[in-house]
Each structure stands twice: as C-alpha cells, then as structure tokens.
C-alpha cells in the first residue's frame, strides 16, 4: 500500500508528461483529416443517428419509459453509448498501448504507467467533446435540465477510476498474453449488452438471473448514473454508485499491483 501511494505521487509528478502526451495523442489523431477536431463531435453524432434509426424506427423499443417516442429513446441510448465508447475504446487501446510505445519502454527511461493513464485520459477528452452535443439533445427533446446534471462529474470520476484500473490490468497482462486483444473485443460486446444501454434498467427486473448479472456489472451503475443525471433528471442511486466506487478503488489497487509486478518484464517482452 505504501508503495502504491509512493507510486501515485510519482505519477502525479508526471502530470506534465501526461498532459503533453494526451495533447499529442489528440493532435496526432486528427492530423491530416479535413474536419480535424470536429470529428470528436461528428463521431458521436453519427453514432447516435445510426442507433436512432436502428432502434427507434427499424426495431422500435416499446418501453413505456420512452412514451413510444423514438427520439426519447435515441436520447436515452446516446446518454449511455457516449460513456460506453469512452470505456470500450480506452480498454481496447490500453490492451495495445505498451506494445505500440515499446520504443519508449525499451529505449529510454520512461515511466510505463503513464501510458494507460494517457489512453484513458485522451478518451475522456473525446468523451467530453461529445458531451455538449448530448446536452444539446437533452434540451432539444424537451427533457428539462435539473440540478442533478451538476452531479455528472461524480459519475465521470467513478468511471475514470474504473476505466483506469481496468486499463492497468489489461495493458500489463496483454504484454504477456497477446490473446487478450482477441478475447477483449468479444468480451466488450458481451459486456455492452450486459449493461443497460440499449434497454432500460427496469427491463431486466423480470428475469432474476439476468438481473443478478447486470447488477454485478460495475458499468451498470456507472451508466445508470449518467441516465439519472441526464435522462431522468433525478438523483442517482448514490449507494450503488458508492459501492461501485469502492469496487473501482479496489480494482485499481489490484490492477496497479499487477502492473507493478510485471513492470520489469516490459522492456524485454513488448
């Protein structure tokens, strides 16, 4: 534990590096594209349009919560998909990040733990670019803002910790087991459908087994946090989110410990 705290302090010292690497990542991603940074807005917008067409019109969801309105459903969907994309892309990128930046680990004295942090953080930045669009749609579709929207940063923080701990675990283990990359993409699809994103949480109440599964999924409570802040305009289940935070912190400890344990093997394995 003492070592973890020492390392976290160390990590804090690297904040300038993290900050610069994140901005490099963002700059590099859209370099050479015509629309540049606008893609950070267009990507979620296009995604939302697709989801609206598919789940609003082609496979309409008749849940009473949306009052049979495909637009409301699209809004619900979008408020879950946006944070999910943050989580899933940072997970997928983390699985690769140590290999991609193998040169840094092998050739210069570089704090490897910076890399998963940079991955999660730059995806957070993308997420926050999409957020204004989401808020705009909330207004357009007539869902009034409540004060609870101010609690959004709390949910973001919990997700950040959870995503980060998962990233540490993934990035370290993938160095030794490249199979994780393949497992991960399938796991994430499964995980996506185990999280109330395309269906409302109330939908799983009927099936006991599925409800247990969904309840055990930390992402459920995080995504529900977003739903409550933005879609329902109510206070989230702070107990559930609190437990998720504790679990995330525990996972962070484990993820970091594994990362730290395998650290010395990175220069020769990546």
């Amino acid at each position: 534990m003492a070592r973890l705290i020492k390392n976290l302090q160390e990590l804090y010292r690297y904040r300038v590096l993290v900050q610069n690497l994140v901005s490099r990542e963002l700059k590099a991603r859209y370099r050479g594209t015509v629309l540049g940074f606008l893609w950070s807005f267009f990507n979620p917008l296009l995604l939302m349009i697709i989801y609206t067409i598919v789940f609003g019109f082609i496979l309409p969801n008749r849940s009473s919560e949306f009052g049979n309105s495909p637009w409301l459903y699209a809004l619900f969907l979008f408020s879950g998909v946006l944070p999910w994309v943050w989580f899933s892309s940072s997970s997928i990128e983390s699985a690769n990040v140590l290999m991609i930046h193998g040169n840094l680990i092998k050739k210069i004295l570089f704090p490897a733990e910076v890399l998963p942090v940079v991955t999660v953080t730059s995806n957070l930045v993308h997420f926050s670019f999409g957020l204004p669009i989401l808020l705009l749609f909330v207004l357009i579709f007539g869902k009034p803002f409540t004060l609870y929207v101010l609690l959004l940063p709390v949910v973001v923080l919990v997700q950040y910790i959870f995503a980060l701990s998962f990233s540490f675990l993934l990035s370290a283990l993938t160095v030794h087991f490249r199979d994780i990359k393949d497992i991960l993409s399938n796991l994430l699809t499964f995980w996506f459908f185990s999280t109330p994103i395309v269906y409302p949480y109330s939908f799983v109440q009927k099936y006991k087994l599925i409800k247990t599964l969904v309840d055990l999924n930390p992402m459920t409570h995080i995504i529900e946090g977003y739903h409550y802040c933005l879609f329902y305009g109510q206070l989230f289940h702070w107990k559930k989110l609190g437990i998720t935070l504790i679990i995330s912190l525990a996972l962070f400890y484990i993820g970091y410990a594994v990362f730290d344990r395998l650290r010395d093997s990175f220069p020769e394995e990546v």
Partner: protein
Amino acid sequence: MFAIELENVTRVYQKYSARHRFQTFKSALVKGDLFRSLKADELVMAVDGISLQAEKGMTFGVIGENGSGKSTLLKLVAGIAKPTSGWVRVEGKISALIELGAGFHPEITGRENVFINGIMLGLSKKEISRKFDEIVRFAELENFIDAPVKTYSSGMYMRLGFSVAINVNPDVLLIDEVLAVGDAAFVPKCLDRIDDFRRRKKTILFVSHDLATVEKICDKVAWMKGGRIQMLGEPKRVVDAYLQDIAAMQEEDYQKRKIEVDLEQKWEDERREKRWGKREVEIRKVTLKNLRGEEKHVFTPDEGMVIEIDAVAHEPVKDFVFGIGIFNSQGISCYGTNTSLEDYEPVALQGEGKAMCRIEKLNLVNGTYYLDVAVHKRDGYPYDYHRNLYSFLVSSTLKDVGIARLPHTWTFSPTIQIKPPDK
C-alpha cells in the same frame, strides 16, 4: 567519488523457444500459476557478474563484439533494465543516447516533438523553451522544424534526437553506438559536444565499435566478452588486446574453413573456373606464413609475409615462371610480380620443389586480400594457374585508405602545433 558503480551485476534474459512464444493465456491458466509459467527454461546471461566503477568526470569506454552484453550493461546503468542480481548506483541525472528520437511521434511536428521528447527526458517546459533555438540550430533543422517528423530523413530524425538528448544537460551521459548513423559533417559536431561534456567534468559511458574514437576520447576502457569484463584499463592497451583477440579468432575461423575445404576436394568442378592449366607442373599447396615461419591468415600492415608454393613437375620442364598477384576485395590488383619480370632465368625443374616469395613488410590497408599463384611458361602458357584461391586479412587500428600504405613520415615546422599519436 564514483559517478557510476556496479557491484556484481548479473542480468539474465530468457531465451525464446517456439514453445514459449506461443504460450497463451489459456496454457498459463491451465498450468495454474500465471506468473511462474512465465519463466522460460532456457536462460541467457547477458551480463554476468560485472563490477566496475567510473569516477566522476571520467569518460568510460566499453568495447566488444556484438552480443557481448555492452548494450545490456548500458541499459542497466540507465535503469531501463533491472539487474537480476547485484546492484547499480548512479550519481546524478542520467541522459541515455540509446536510440535517438525513440519517443518521436511521426504525425506531429518537429517543434512539438522537441517539447514532448524533452519532457520525457526530464526537462521542464520552461527549460525547453529556453533551449529550443539552440536545439534546432544544433540539429540544423531551422527550415523543417514545423513539418511533421514523418517527413524527415533518417539523418534529420537522428540529428534532432541527438540534439534534444544532449541538451538535457545530464551529469551522466550514456552513449550507445548512436554516432554510427551521422554523416561526415554531423559526427564531428557530436564529438565536439561530447568533448565539451568532458571538459565540464561530466561522466560519460561510451559504447562503440569505433575503436579509434574510443581510444581517442576515453580515459578507461572495458572490453566485454560473453557478458563478462575481459579486460579493463588504459584505452590503447585494451583496444590492442581486443584487436589481437579478433585476429586470433579470425585466424581460427580461417583454419577451420580451410580444413573443411581440404576435405571437400571433390568440389573440383566448382574450383575449375578458379584454376586452370594442364598441370605439367602442379601447385600442390600454397601456405602463407609470417616472417617467423608461423602459418597465418591475419596480418598487420607492419608484418611481413612469406608465400610458400609447393610445386611438383610431372615431366621435366625448362621453361617456367613462378608468379603471384595480390588483389583486394574490389578485385583491384594491388601488386603482382613473377620470376620472369624480375629477370630470373629458368634452367630446369624436375620433381618436387618449393618456391618462396618473401615480402618484408605488407604495407597494405585494412581489408581482405586474395592471392593469385601460378606457374606458367614465359609466353604465358599456363601449367597451373590458381585464381584468387587464397585469401588473407589485413587488420590494423589505423584507418588509412587506398590500396597500399606508402612508407611515410610527417614532419612539421615549429609554427604548426600538433600532437603526435601516443605510441
């Protein structure tokens, strides 16, 4: 006070077997222990129990063949690799020139890369801003600094990498063979910078294959072989010992190859285009010896050489000429002569005989040389002509160029201040 101190440092690497490389998550899970199963059964000692100290302000050279553990040693000092056992202590800020521009991102500009690379190497943003112009000027990239790094040539890339790394202003500078890629104008500039470091009493650990530079700039040299320090001491002595070792190994290698060739006499067909003539007089054997009569393959330019030709005449002949020719690896004739050219008058040759050509001093530059040996008539009709069938090596620390080393001396008027080499 030591700037770098290593105490009985060992670094073991896993030898990758096919089995290990394809080891998967599944098999590790099946075996149960995630971590234990990561251990390979075959290990390689990259660095094997090394202890050394480099005092502050010293330029410490490390030489050795490929795979002798030099780079691992450097990585251990840099802290990139951790020792398996033993300990490493380094005093002060380190900058490692192991791979230049290792952290560059190809898509963003040189300017942005300088900042990020600088931060990675431990500079603050303010320090980089202050040194930025100097960094760019040194790298000679004033006109390209705002272009993405992917458009750079490898030389530009390397120059920028070097320039950033050297401007970190470390207390301990680690250099691994990075100067090998610079062009003729940039390398002296880098060496100047390194000299500057030495004057400011910074410690340098210098790994290189460029023995002349090592000899010139280092205060102390370690020669590594098979992960251990073979010899440690004064540069000239260590470099010479290393060269002798290489020569001895080449000699051994050559002997082994020669035996193999002798055993494969059936390959006559392949040898035919390298050997012709009806063999009324046959060359049985050609041996290269030094002046002390020891058979040798690797010579220094100062050494002499004896070419021994064992010949046998299957019928008595009255018209015969012995000749030799020395060619370098580009096929340029360095020297050729024969007994007829030197006005030896053949009288009679019958049965076995031995002709010896004694060269007092080779005076050739570094390289591999091939030998023609022949017996023929005065009008050129060949009895037995061996074309480039024999070879020898000339090896020396001097990097003079051309075909032959012409015997020479330098003298200077007193107004020219110049230091002769330490011999």
